[in-house]
């Protein structure tokens, strides 16, 4: 890495082009390689399926027919990339945004649960971290439970949550958000405990020499000092809360949402639909991280980061 950046400085005229090449060539190569592997895998996995189809219908077929068939089977074991992309594009643009077959509609349903869950989880996580930082006793009594809470698979917990919350009259958005919050509070709590204790001892002592109140120490020192930790954990938490929301949609029987779409796809063997929903989830997750990253950059800029 050092040698190549040195070389950059020496050959100034081509520096820009070289920077572009250095930046994008590895990414593009990797994507192309993955797509190629995917196509090969699609051919291999769908081969018997397609060949059996020809044989069942007793139509004569050539190898090239089977090959073509693996590329556009209706219910392939592994859909080819272009099938997934087509289904995704169709799901996003092929219907009015609020139609029940539109991926935008399902994404919005999942996103609302994600956002609410994320906000609840963030507030809960930060509150827990505050309590833990301010009391040794509570740290010892709470921390094991917090860690235990994350050792139970959420897939096992989600139905329990839905049933219990349903019994007390909570349905729809809120139970999903609570499951999402249950997952995403954890990285925030852990990150913020670290963040709140991150100030330099000298800074803490300075506050003491000024006889600052605990509240002043929190708002003027501990809180701003924890901002880098906050954003690191928010980035983890927002994807986790998306996963939580999707998982929470599975046991509800799937009326709407990305999770419902996945479930319906697996019920009816619509593999392409499953993959398209997965792509939608991936796009959502990366845009959510992107948004958090943008906010982080804005905040860092205001806080004088270089």
């Amino acid at each position, binding site marked *: 890495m050092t040698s190549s950046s040195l070389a950059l400085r020496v050959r100034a005229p081509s520096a820009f082009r070289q920077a572009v090449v250095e930046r994008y060539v590895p990414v593009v190569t990797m994507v192309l390689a993955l797509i190629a592997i995917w196509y090969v895998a699609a051919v291999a996995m769908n081969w018997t399926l397609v060949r059996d189809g020809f044989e069942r219908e007793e139509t004569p077929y050539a190898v090239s027919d089977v090959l073509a068939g693996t590329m556009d089977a209706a219910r392939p074991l592994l859909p080819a990339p272009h099938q997934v992309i087509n289904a995704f594009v169709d799901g996003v643009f092929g219907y009015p945004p609020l139609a029940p077959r539109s991926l935008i509609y399902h994404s919005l349903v999942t996103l609302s649960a994600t956002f609410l869950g994320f906000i609840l989880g963030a507030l809960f996580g930060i509150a827990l971290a505050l309590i833990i930082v301010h009391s040794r006793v509570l740290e010892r009594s709470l921390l094991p439970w917090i860690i235990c809470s994350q050792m139970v698979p959420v897939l096992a917990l989600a139905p329990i949550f839905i049933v219990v919350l349903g019994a007390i009259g909570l349905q729809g958005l809120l139970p999903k958000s609570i499951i999402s919050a249950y997952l995403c509070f954890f990285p925030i709590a852990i990150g913020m405990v670290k963040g709140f204790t991150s100030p*330099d001892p000298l800074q803490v*002592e300075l506050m003491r*020499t*000024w*006889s600052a109140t605990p509240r002043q120490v929190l708002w003027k020192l501990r809180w*701003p000092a924890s901002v880098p930790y906050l954003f690191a954990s928010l980035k983890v938490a927002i994807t986790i809360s998306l996963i939580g929301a999707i998982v929470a949609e599975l046991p509800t029987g799937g009326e709407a949402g990305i999770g419902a779409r996945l479930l319906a796809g697996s019920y009816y063997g619509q593999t392409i639909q499953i993959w398209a929903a997965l792509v939608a989830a991936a796009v959502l997750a990366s845009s959510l991280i992107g948004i958090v990253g943008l906010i982080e950059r804005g905040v860092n800029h205001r806080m004088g980061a*270089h």
Partner: protein
Amino acid sequence: MPLQKARMSIIGEPKPIPPTGDAVSPSSSGSSVTGAQPRRLVVDAQHISLTFETADGRVDALADVNLGVADGEFVSFIGPSGCGKTTMLRVIADLQQPTSGTLLVNGMTAENARLARSYGYVFQAPALFPWRTIEKNLKLPLEIMGFSESEQTIRAERYLAMVNLKGFERKFPWQLSGGMQQRVSIARALSFDPAMLLMDEPFGALDEIVRDHLNEQLLQLWKSMGKTVLFVTHSIPEAVFLSTKIVVMSPRPGRIIDVIDCDFPADRSLEIRETPEFLKIAQRVRNGLRAGHSYDE
């Protein structure tokens, strides 16, 4: 006229501010350092001892330390590592509590003196808050102490000018050199106009040239403000150059082995370090340090 007014606001007599608890002492900035009348003790320590229990057993950080510091003095603490000079400063600042002994700071207990914001503390590292601009860093103690918005701005401007950092208000700490950062931290310690300035090796991390320069500036500041300064250092020339009184300390147990009075003219410059009087005092300090060491190895 405006010029004179500006000068006055920079080095003029500090106005008594409610939270600094200056009611006991009318500010003494007008009187010269070598005033004849007996002066009030700002620090009065009697038989101060402090022992730590560590894994390796008891450590006597301070053993029976007696010390009186009069208002307006510049007192240096010098001694090898582990001699308790920093501990003594921290005890005065109520950052650590002595195991035994009585201590009056500005006529109060150390804790009350801290609560009354009687001192500004400068650490070896500037310990600026990296997310605050220089101006906001200066305002931090003022915000905490509840100064009005306009008073904060006036003081930030005044004290930045005092350490020659006008024009750096909007910079962030990382944009300043180490020496500049330390000057900001000195300005910050002075900003709420405390009776005392406690400095723990403030220039220890800086190079020789910057250090000399800051020593001269500190001397100027001290002369113009008339505050009591307690100054911990490793450097003999620094101690002799700056102080009216040098406290030589020795480790295991941490104790005072010599107190040397030092009365160079107020308008001294760095050249004074070549004079025989200076060298004589430096020699006495060195002898004291050596005596403290002798039983050690």
